[in-house]
């Protein structure tokens, strides 16, 4: 394979910014900033106290440094922790009142925020920087008793639920970035599914990072009450930027008895240019707790963007017979780096978990799978199956697998397998022979390699994700 003269022509498709005046919090991380955020969100006192508690914890905690991708030191005093489109200070009552520039941005991104969205059956909670612009389909969901709203609204309207569950999966003292998020989170989604309710549509949020130098601190809380089901989609694109932008979101899922949560992510943030300049730091904490019996949490992720992706969507399997699943595709090209995987912590009896991870590394990228399977002493008859496959394209990239496997009782079974290889020359030759060019062939083979994960995505995402897989690797095979 001719790897020496790679053609990195693929420009980031969504690289544009919109000029909107921003209301910004005072620069830097301080109690003042936190009070400012809390005030502008009109938060009750308990919420402010909670944030300050996290901030105090942050002062004594240290940034972790065990990860594979290293990054330049982040100056937390040089960031803005809150910025909102100005036209949002008076909340729009309908779409017509929304800043047309915003609407334009969404249209470029192809977010169905207008009439098409009703047809496509997607309720969109679009987060532009930090404030939710419009939440659609609210009424239809309200009829079923489903709460789907920005978390800032939930803090005001459903304080009992928020108080009970916020921080119950990711405690404020968890680790540096989670604590940071707890102190300064600006907005995000809140979902509550009442008992024995099946959410009639896929809930979806598009995040979009805009204003320069603004760290994004989303907070998502999803609660599936007894016997309920919800599928949640998260997709991301971001404009072209030269400065590294930090994104430290927290996502907490709680599944009670017999409930099921399916959480899917397609992440396509700005990865930086081919020289590794710019790009998003995606340091996200995602964790789900299967609290109830027979509950299930399933994570699916397609990670193609960001300069550095560093996340481990995890499941804590507390309830007996609960199930955790993790399906992941991580594609890194050029100088991108990914250190991702999952943690499956088995505490209840008869708990099951399954991990399928596909890492693809091209250009000069580094891709690491890091995962933990921990079967506790009391988690009798538990089962885990892990498969992580890596595909390398070219000899300048790296693929790493770092699984931690702990088995503490004899009735449980853990199986783990991992392989690393390159695209088979015979397969490429076969495709070429049938008239596909090199890039089409690679895209086809890689899509086949990822099929097990892509299948898990909801229809709306599957098509987009398949295209994304192809696009992300364009120019990587010469």
């Amino acid at each position, binding site marked *: 394979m001719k790897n020496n003269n790679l053609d990195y022509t693929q420009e980031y498709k969504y690289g544009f910014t919109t000029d909107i005046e921003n209301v910004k919090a005072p620069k830097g991380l301080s109690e003042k900033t936190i009070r400012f955020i809390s005030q502008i969100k009109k938060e009750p006192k308990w919420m402010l106290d909670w944030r300050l508690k996290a901030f105090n914890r942050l002062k004594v905690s240290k940034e972790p440094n*065990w990860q594979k991708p290293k990054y330049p030191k982040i100056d937390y005093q040089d960031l803005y922790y809150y910025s909102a489109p100005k036209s949002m200070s008076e909340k729009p009552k309908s779409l017509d009142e929304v800043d047309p520039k915003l609407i334009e941005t969404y249209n470029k991104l192809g977010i169905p925020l207008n009439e098409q969205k009703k047809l496509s059956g997607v309720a969109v909670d679009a987060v532009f920087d930090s404030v939710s612009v419009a939440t659609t389909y609210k009424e239809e969901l309200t009829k079923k008793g489903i709460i789907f709203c920005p978390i800032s609204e939930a803090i005001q309207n459903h304080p009992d639920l928020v108080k009970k569950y916020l921080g119950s999966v990711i405690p404020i003292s968890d680790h540096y970035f989670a604590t940071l998020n707890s102190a300064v989170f600006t907005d995000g989604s809140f979902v509550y599914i009442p008992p024995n309710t099946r959410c009639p549509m896929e809930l979806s949020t598009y995040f979009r990072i805009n204003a320069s130098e603004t760290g994004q601190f989303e907070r998502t809380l999803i609660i599936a009450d007894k016997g309920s089901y919800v599928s949640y989609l998260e997709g991301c694109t971001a404009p072209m930027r030269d400065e590294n932008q930090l994104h430290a979101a927290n996502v907490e899922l709680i599944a009670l008895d017999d409930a099921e949560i399916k959480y899917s992510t397609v992440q396509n943030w700005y990865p930086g240019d081919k020289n590794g300049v710019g790009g998003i730091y995606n340091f996200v904490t995602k964790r789900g707790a299967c609290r109830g019996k027979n509950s299930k949490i399933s994570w699916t992720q397609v990670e193609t963007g960001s300069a550095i992706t560093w996340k481990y969507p995890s499941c804590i399997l507390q309830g007996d017979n609960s199930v955790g699943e993790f399906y992941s595709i991580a594609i890194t090209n050029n100088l991108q780096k990914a250190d991702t995987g999952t943690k499956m912590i088995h505490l209840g009896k008869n708990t099951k978990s399954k991990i399928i991870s596909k890492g693809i590394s091209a250009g000069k990228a580094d891709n690491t799978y890091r995962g933990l399977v921990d079967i506790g*002493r009391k988690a009798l008859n538990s089962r885990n199956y892990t498969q992580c496959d*890596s595909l*390398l*394209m*070219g*000899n*300048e*990239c*790296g*693929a*790493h*697998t*770092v*699984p*931690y*496997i*702990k*088995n*503490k*009782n*004899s*009735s*449980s*079974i*853990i*199986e*783990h*397998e*991992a*392989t*690393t*290889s*390159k695209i088979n020359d015979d397969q490429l030759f076969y495709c070429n022979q049938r008239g596909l060019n090199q890039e089409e062939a690679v895209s086809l083979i890689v899509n086949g390699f990822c099929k097990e994960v892509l299948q898990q995505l909801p229809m709306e995402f599957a098509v987009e994700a398949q295209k994304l897989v192809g696009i992300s690797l364009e120019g990587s095979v010469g």
Partner: protein
Amino acid sequence: MLNFKINSDEIDKIGSFSKEEKNFRLKNLDYFNDIGFPNKKNEDWKFSDLKAIVSENFSKLDIQFSKSKKQKVDFIKDFEHNYIVIVNGELTISDFKYEEKSNIILKSFSNDNYSNKKESNPLINLNHALSNKGFFLEVKENYKFKKILVIYYLFTEDLDENILNSKNKIKIGKNSELHLLDYLVNDSKKNFFNNVHEDIILENSAVLKNIYLQNNKSSGYFHKYSRNKLFTGSNYSYFIFPAGLKFNKLDLEFDLEGERSECNLQSASFLDNNEHQEIKTRVNHFVPNCKSHQKVKNVLNAESKGVYQGKIFVKDVAQKTDAYQLSKAILLSERSEFDSKPELEIYADDVRCSHGSTSGNLDKDSIYYLMTRGLSQKESTKLLVNGFLNEIADSIKSNSIRNFIKNKLETQLLNEYKKH
């Protein structure tokens, strides 16, 4: 004994050294004293918190140890062999009666390399600082050993809360071949710590077959760091049969430095009581066309804990690498634990690297099948466990040695089953 610090005076007590060597030892002692025994905050010791283990089980660790009395050796009678006898780490007698002695160099170990490096494993620094025993063995070019060489490592009865530091080096010259049996016999009933540093060099096309066998269980706490360098076309196979110790960590590093070199590591252990064993490997593929193969099997009973940490590193130029890692564990008791971390770090694309790791109980169907044939549950378990572990010993080619090893393992297992 939470803080185990060593006074620099101790170095003078070991012996008199050149200025250079003394500085080297002092420097390494400083490195060790900075950290002390590693705890689980150290990534490589995540599953084996040595600091806690040492402070729980030792009230002191004596560095000085009076010269051991003459030790009676129970020589193996099952097959003809050359031998070296090491008592408490110290080279005593040897006999190469089947070989041409001009092709063999054997002497007590002396330092020749004073590199001052802070090791990530503080026990290596400790060894550099304090080691005063050990041997150096060289097989010259183009010489193939006619009979196997057995190295008897004897640990005497009078060891009590001592720490032994020894350093061994084995060099196999070009086109030479050596078959080795490391045979560990432990007579001490008391706790002691044994810290070994081993260097093995295989020159071009050299072959080394090494079998590590512990004769009996003991209350020894063992740590061995072994660095193995393989040059072009060399071949190293390493079989490990530990008997189960209070603590046993083998930290093995293989550097494949020459093309077409091959290393093969296999291990079978049966752990019982509160035994703790860790096998940590790191295989570095630095050049193209090399092979590495690892197979680690553990059976865990009672409250024992087994750990396997394996890492395969493939450098960007090391194309056509074939690396494989397999860890299988059977947990027989609710209180046993098995942790593994099979790691791959790969920078070359045209490679075949894979690993697998499984842990679980014996297959219920197999037990049921055997019981329908009239065996008791205990017998069925025993049969299946034997079958599971014997696979490793079965791949030893020499008949007499294989049978010897299998007998040893059989007796060890029998003792286990008698107890339960």
